């Protein structure tokens, strides 16, 4: 088995007939944290939606291997079972579905997919209690409907809590627009750092240096017009913080 968890090759994708991704190449190793930066409309969120199989996005070309398997032929739920988790920028409220029933269904399905026996009720509840305490969500969580009436911060904690329950191999933390909400960024970044398994990789999508200060990525990518145009270490993020993206555009023109 490859130690690469994700290999994206020459990926093209469109939404509502408009081509957004125009040949993305990206490789992520086990346990690595990658930051994806770029201005609005550069394709960051499209890439994450394509990876999790959002049906609104159409892949027109290219391939994606996840843990060596062909990701694009899998249903969104099987991608989840294989270990892809996306933390939603705006988590969906589902009135009337309790967190307990929601996670029970998710975990049961995952264990079935992996050929494991379902967790007994007491083990399941114990697991929920443990993970819940780690993200500082209160005990009423289990009975509450999914995200319904949660504050912004609670919704973020709830995403990380779900990540902790599902123990993904790759977490996609989409925080494109929550840059100004420092508290939300901190919750997601701290939560991820504390709750991830050692071999869990991450793609963090952000415009903001702050997020990267918290997360300390191993690799930083810059997307522009549907492609990854620069890849570097943390110093690349520092340069973007200082100079913005224009210098990359200039360099691309010259090339």
């Amino acid at each position, binding site marked *: 088995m490859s130690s690469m968890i994700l290999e994206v090759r020459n990926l093209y994708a469109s939404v509502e007939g408009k081509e957004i991704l125009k040949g993305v190449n990206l490789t992520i190793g086990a346990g690595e944290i990658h930051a994806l930066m770029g201005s609005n409309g550069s394709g960051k969120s499209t890439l994450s939606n394509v990876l999790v*199989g*959002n049906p609104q996005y159409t892949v027109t070309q290219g391939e994606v291997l996840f843990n060596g398997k062909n990701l694009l032929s899998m*249903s969104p*739920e099987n991608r*989840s*079972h294989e270990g892809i*988790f996306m933390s939603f920028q705006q988590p*969906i409220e*589902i009135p009337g579905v309790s967190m307990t029933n929601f996670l029970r269904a998710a975990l049961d*399905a995952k264990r079935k997919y992996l050929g494991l026996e379902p967790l007994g009720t007491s083990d399941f509840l114990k697991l929920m209690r443990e993970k819940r305490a780690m993200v500082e969500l209160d005990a009423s969580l289990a009975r509450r409907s999914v995200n319904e009436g949660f504050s912004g911060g609670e919704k973020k904690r709830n995403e990380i809590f779900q990540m902790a329950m599902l123990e993904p191999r790759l977490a996609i933390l989409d925080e494109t627009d929550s840059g100004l909400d420092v508290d939300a960024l901190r919750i997601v970044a701290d939560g991820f750092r504390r709750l991830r398994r050692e071999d869990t990789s991450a793609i963090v999508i952000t415009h903001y240096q702050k997020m990267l200060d918290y997360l300390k990525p191993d690799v930083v990518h810059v997307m522009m017009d549907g492609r990854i145009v620069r890849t570097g270490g943390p110093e690349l993020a520092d340069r973007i913080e200082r100079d913005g993206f224009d210098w990359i555009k200039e360099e691309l023109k010259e090339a």
Partner: protein
Amino acid sequence: MGSEKQYLDLYRENEVLVATHSCGMMNALRRGAHDVLARQGFPTLKTEDYRYTDVDEAFAPDYGINVRRLPFVVDRSSAFRCSVPNMGVAMGFMVGDRLTVPATTHWPEGVTVDSICNYDRQHPGRLAEYYGRLAPWGTDAVAALNTMLAQDGLLIWVEKGRKTDATLQIVNLGCGEMDLMTNRRILIIMEEGAKASVLMCDHNIDRHRFLTTQVGEIYMGEGSSLSLCGIEETDGENGMFDNLYVMQQKNSSFDGGFFSLHCGLTRRSIDVKLAGEGARAELFGGVTGDAASHVDTNLLVDHVAGGCKSNVLFKYVLDGKSTGAFAGKVLVRKDAQKTESQETNANLCVSPEARMYTQPMLEIYADDVRCNHGSTVGRLDEKALFYMAQRGIPEEEANMLLQEAFLGDAIRMVKIEPLRERLYLMVRERFRHKLGGCGGCDKCATK
């Protein structure tokens, strides 16, 4: 057209027999009801109150009627497993129109549960001021047919000031050796300040087609309180015409829950009159339709007196080729000032072929009122489905969770707590078996 003729003929040919196996009070109205039905016939789809259900077609098959009221199935009721067991209830069975009470059942003190005719024979004249006084058999064809043919039914009478916590459970069992029609009456009298809960479950235990007409009349005395909950778990060939009429006096409180979890054709008419100041009515229901099932709820909340509150919530989840209809009118008469009413009908069509017809109506003649009404027909929330898929919840499971959640709003209105919990579970089971049976009868299990 004209399927009422076979019933009119049957009545005329068996007039003496029908009367012999019934009681004087019920017999007294038969001829009049016969004449009404003969004159006006069954309603057509052009009749406003019946535009969503083809009555003529529903009554067209040749059903037998147990005119001699042979007790062919009484012993089987004891073996029946109800899916709402162990609720701390006092339980009785209605096999067709015949009340059977297990020897182990003890009705609470001050509560009379009896066969209407049995009571009428023992207390002549006492029921006459109630029977047939609310049901508009002079104008409604189904009420007329029922009044013409019904030979017995259920009486629940709760004495003045008597408050009982135990739930009275009545299990209606459709059974018989052939396709059978039952015509049954329900009479509930809540005296001043009385309080009770009644659960009515409908099941079929034989593999025949059953058609039932049920006409219920409920008298709510001043300050009385009744929680009534009906749960229908029959089968795809069952036909049910259920007309309920409620008269509420001052400060009385009526909760009516109507859950059709499994059925064929059900046409339910609920007519509540808020006649005394400060009366309160909550009407709610949940429908899970599939295959070719059809559930039509026709509702009238009539605010006659001022200062009354009504709250109506019906939710349908329709799958397969099922159809649903909801026509609900809240009428606020000119003296009904300070009325508060809310009427909501929300529906999910989860398959492309399911159809829902919804018609909430509000008619207001008073000027100082707070009234709202609305309806929605939609599909499952795509964003929620994708969110659930991302967390690994398979599509089918996600659909079921969302459908259960949708009906949960109506279940939450059930006042009897153990029943509420049970209903959540039943709805859950219902969606998991999809086209399967109710689990309580051998009819579905052997199909």
